[in-house]
Each structure stands twice: as structure tokens, then as C-alpha cells.
């Protein structure tokens, strides 16, 4: 491919992304307080989904326990914060991320000894173990959870650079985090490491036959995904100022997988889009204005939607145009 073709395709791909970021940047000026809040939640979920995309989409590892790392970082954030004064973002965020990365190192080292169906079940089981650690142990506050009393700030000497207690500051910090995670994963996809992961996804046997030791690569991807889920967990704890075991529950792991498949597996855009779609669907099904008293049974339409989506558009929303093209054009003879 000639060099200018690469740049045009890059520009063509970057334009909608930049437009989306610009829209998100001006959103607080047009949206009401409720919608700004909802958008922050959505962006946090998008970071969470992006972190899982690294495993599922890039490496072909279907983890059903990703909520563990989200929740561990959220708990670390709440437990490490002092009760009376504002913790510094400069150490609290790295601490939460390192803790979730270490948890991912331990769980990943064991889970990656298995593959396929086993891997799905083992990651689910380990996430459930993390759930019980926070649910049963006294230090974590049991099923009531823990509060984060004062939100973190980033200060340089006497100047407060960022105060996450201010809604707009938090909004833009979350947006910046999402863009940073997206950019990191996009760059990673072009790196040697990213190509190795793609090779593992396509044919692990062959990678090993070619002399690649795949286990360290998979473990590195697992740890990085855990760390990025930790970023999302940190933001979640700061946003709500409250954590409880439900954020590690296996429904959370199922939800984030659902976001990926809604958006389309194998693309970063898909992960972000999936998070947005999920929030829209959930708000719709929970809306009493639309469903009346049936809204409390919102998981029924959600479950049916999941089944229908997976059955009818397995490539998600981002794969829909290609899927429609394929079904319209008569398939030529194979060969």
C-alpha cells in the first residue's frame, strides 16, 4: 500500500473519532446535570469495556471475571483513602491500578494454564472468589461496602490542579482517561506486542511452532487489561463515593462482555459504542415513562435483547454495515 493511502485511511478513520471526542467535550454545556452524570458513568464503563477488548478482541481470551479487577481497584481506592482529608490523585490512582494489576498477575498466571471453556469458567470462579473476599471479610465492610469520604485532588505545592469533587473537573478527567486508554490500546495494536497478540488470537499453535512463547504475552495482556480495568474501577469509586461487593458480582462481568458484543468485537470503537448502547438500553428498559410498572422487570427485555443481538448481529453494531452488505450481495462461489 502506498504511503499516502495509509495517511488518507488514517485521516478517514480519525475524523469520526475526533468528532466524537469534540461532541463529548461540549456535552456538559448542553446536557443537564442528570445527563452529565450518566455520561460520566458511560465513559467509565467504556474504559472498562476497552480494557476487556484487549483480552477478548485482541488476544482471543474470553474472560468472564473481568469485574474482579474493576472491583478490586474500586475497593483499594475506598480503603486507602483517609477519612478526613483529601487523598492525592498522584499516589491513589497508581496505587489502585498497581493493586488491580497485581491481582490480575496472580489470577492470570493460574487461569492462563487453561484454555477455552476452562478459561471462561476459571476466570468466573476467581472473580467470585474476589467477591467473597470483599463480601465476607470484616475489613471491607461486608455487604454494606465502604464509603469514600473525601474525593481525591491533584495538588502541586499550594496550587490545586484538579479537584475531582467538582463535577466538571471529574467529567473532563474521565473523558481524558478514556481518550488516553483508547490511544494507548490503539498504539499497542500497531506495536510488536499487539501483533504478537493478534497472532495468538488467530492461531496460537502456529505462534508456538514459530518459536513464540505465548504464555508471557498472554499474561502481559491479562495484567495490562486488569490494570486498565483498575483505572475504570478507580473512577467508579471516586464518582459514587461508595463501593459494595455488587460491583465485583458476576453480573458485572457479564455486562461488560455484553457491551463488547453489542458494539462489535475486535475494534476499540466497538467497545466504546457498546458501553454507550448498553447504557441507553438499560435506561430505556428501566424507564417507567416507557414501560410503566413493568420497568422493574427490566432484565427480561435486556435478556431477550442479548439473545436477539447475539443471534442476529454477532459482529455488533460496528459490524452491521458489513453484515448487511454481505446479505444483500449474492455470495459468489467460494474459491
Amino acid at each position, binding site marked *: 500500500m502506498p504511503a499516502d493511502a495509509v495517511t488518507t485511511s488514517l485521516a478517514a478513520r480519525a475524523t469520526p473519532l475526533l468528532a466524537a471526542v469534540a461532541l463529548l467535550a461540549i456535552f456538559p454545556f448542553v446536557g443537564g446535570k442528570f445527563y452529565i452524570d450518566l455520561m460520566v458513568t458511560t465513559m467509565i464503563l467504556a474504559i472498562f469495556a476497552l480494557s476487556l477488548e484487549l483480552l*477478548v478482541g485482541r488476544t482471543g481470551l*474470553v474472560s*468472564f471475571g473481568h469485574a474482579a479487577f474493576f472491583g478490586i481497584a474500586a475497593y483499594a481506592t475506598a480503603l486507602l483513602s483517609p477519612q478526613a482529608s483529601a487523598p492525592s490523585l498522584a499516589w491513589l490512582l497508581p496505587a489502585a491500578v498497581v493493586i488491580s494489576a497485581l491481582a490480575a498477575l496472580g489470577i492470570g498466571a*493460574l*487461569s492462563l*494454564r*487453561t484454555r*477455552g*471453556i*476452562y478459561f*471462561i*469458567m*476459571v476466570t*468466573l*470462579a*476467581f472473580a*467470585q*472468589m474476589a467477591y*467473597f*473476599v470483599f*463480601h*465476607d*471479610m*470484616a475489613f471491607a465492610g461486608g455487604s454494606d461496602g465502604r464509603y469514600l469520604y473525601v474525593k481525591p485532588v491533584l495538588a502541586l505545592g499550594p496550587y490545586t490542579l484538579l479537584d475531582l469533587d467538582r463535577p466538571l473537573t471529574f467529567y473532563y478527567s474521565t473523558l481524558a482517561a478514556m481518550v488516553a486508554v483508547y490511544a494507548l490500546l490503539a498504539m499497542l495494536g500497531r506495536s510488536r506486542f499487539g501483533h504478537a497478540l493478534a497472532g495468538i488470537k488467530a492461531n496460537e499453535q502456529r505462534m508456538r511452532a514459530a518459536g513464540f512463547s505465548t504464555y508471557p504475552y498472554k499474561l502481559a495482556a491479562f495484567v495490562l487489561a486488569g490494570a486498565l480495568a483498575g483505572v475504570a474501577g478507580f473512577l467508579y469509586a471516586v464518582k459514587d463515593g461508595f463501593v459494595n461487593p455488587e460491583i465485583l458480582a*458476576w453480573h458485572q462481568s*457479564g455486562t461488560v*462482555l*455484553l457491551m463488547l*458484543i453489542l458494539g462489535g*468485537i475486535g475494534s476499540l470503537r466497538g467497545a466504546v459504542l457498546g458501553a454507550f448502547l448498553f447504557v441507553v438500553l438499560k435506561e430505556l428498559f428501566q424507564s417507567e415513562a416507557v414501560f410503566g410498572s413493568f420497568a422493574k*422487570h427490566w*432484565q*427480561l427485555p*435486556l*435478556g*431477550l*435483547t*442479548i*439473545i436477539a443481538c*447475539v*443471534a442476529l448481529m*454477532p459482529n455488533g453494531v460496528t459490524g452491521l454495515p458489513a453484515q448487511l452488505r454481505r446479505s444483500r450481495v449474492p455470495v459468489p462461489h467460494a474459491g
Partner: protein
Amino acid sequence: MDFAVFLVQCLNALQYGLLLFLVASGLTLIFGILGVINLAHGSFYMIGAYLAYALAPWAAEQFGGGFFTAIAIGIVLSVVFGYLLEWGFVSYLYQREHLQQVLMTYGLILVFEELRSILVGDDVHGVAPPAWLAGSVQLGSVMTYPTYRLFMSGVCVLVALGLYLVISRTRIGMAIRAGASNREMVQSLGVDIRLLYRIVFAAGVALAVFAGMIAAPVSSVYPGMGNQVLIISFVVVVIGGIGSVRGALLASLLVGLVDTFGKVLIPQTAGILVYVLMAAILLWRPEGLFRAG
């Protein structure tokens, strides 16, 4: 811990392990033979418990006998239900990737839970055991043990024996064993694989529903009861090895022992001990204790 307490805990462990086996054996056969990861398997257990709750008064009124009539009706219903579900839903999952199977059966869980909520509500219910089993048995000089729990363990042993005989001695059992080790080969040898799949799935559903029904008087009936059992059953399948009924039996008993004695000896860590056991087995044998094929 004196001997009588030890004995009671052993009986509890046995009863819990055997109950897990009923759920996990179906799960492991469905994995091993159909190649489908079925998250909704825990829902069948939940459905069984609610069936016992809903059918027992009705059966007592219609036929007399109550609990056992309800169980008989429940088994028939569950086989029909499993057969129809395989035909109408699960059979579409065979050609799909694991991730899609996970999500579609996860969607099914949400549907089952909400239907349960709409039909029966979200309250916790008790189910009475039949009158002649409601008492307790004297153990030693001071301890007693509920008769129903003993009965339950006995029934589970009978079911496990029956399962063993069917799998090791019958033609269909032969096809099941062959299917667990090499699906394609069985198909090419002329076994009607679609029928085999349907039978295995219906049997798996019936086992889980049966487990839910007989567990109802002990555990009571509550929302979300299936999920707990599902995840522990996964642990059992991982420890025992996919597709291996023998492995499932051994692993269920092991999990029952660790969980029961963990709760007595180190109550703080009761919830996580089973997973620690799984981690240890994974370190030692990543493919589980017995792997079929």
C-alpha cells in the same frame, strides 16, 4: 470437635457434595458432549426448587401424596422442557463461538429470573418435607440429625448409581462415553448425534431440576439460588475435568468436604476456600482430575 459433631459435619458434607453432583454431572455432560457452555444450568436448579414449592400443594390436592407426586410431575415436565429447549434454543449454539454461547445463555438466565419474579414474586419460601421424613435421627447420646437430609443423600446415591449404570452398561451410555471423547467420530459411525444431544441435554436439565426439587425443603426457595450453585458447579467441573462424570462425583464430594469443614473450622474464609482448592488443583493438573478424551 467431638466425634458426634464430626459425624454430623461429615453427613452435611456428603449431602452437599452429592447434591452438587446432580447439578454438575449434567453440566459436565453438556460441556463434554454438546460442546456448549451453558450458564443457564443453575437456572434449572432454581426452577426445580420453585416447582417443588408450587407443585406440592397442588399435587396434594389433586392426587394426594404431595411432595413425591410433585417430584414425579416435575421430572416429567423438566424432561419435556429440556427437550424443547434443546430443539428451540440450544441447538442454535453448537456452531457458535464460546463467547456467543456464554452471552446467549447469560441472556437466558436474566429471562428465567425475571419470569420467576413475575410469576412467583421475590419472596423467600419454605417447602415442607413429607411428614414421615420431617423428624430427626438420634446420633450418639446428644446429637440428632434431620431424617430428610439422610433421605436426600440416599436418593442422590441412588441417582448417581443409576447414572453410572446407564453410562457404563447401556447402548446409549456407550454413545455418551464415545461422544465425550470424540464427537466427530461418533457422528461418522452412524449414531444419530442430534437425538443423542437432545437426550443428554434433557437428562442434564432433569438432573438439575431434580436436585432443586429435593433441595427445596432444606435450603428453602429464594431468588438467585441458581447462580450460587452454577458457579460452584463450574468449580466442580474444572476440578473434575470436562465430560467426566466420575471426575464430577469425586470433585463434588471434595468441594462438599472443603466447604462444610471450612465453615466450621475457619468461618472467616468459608466463602473462598473452595476457590483456593480449585487454584491448587489448577496448579497441579490444569486439565482437571479426570479428563474425558
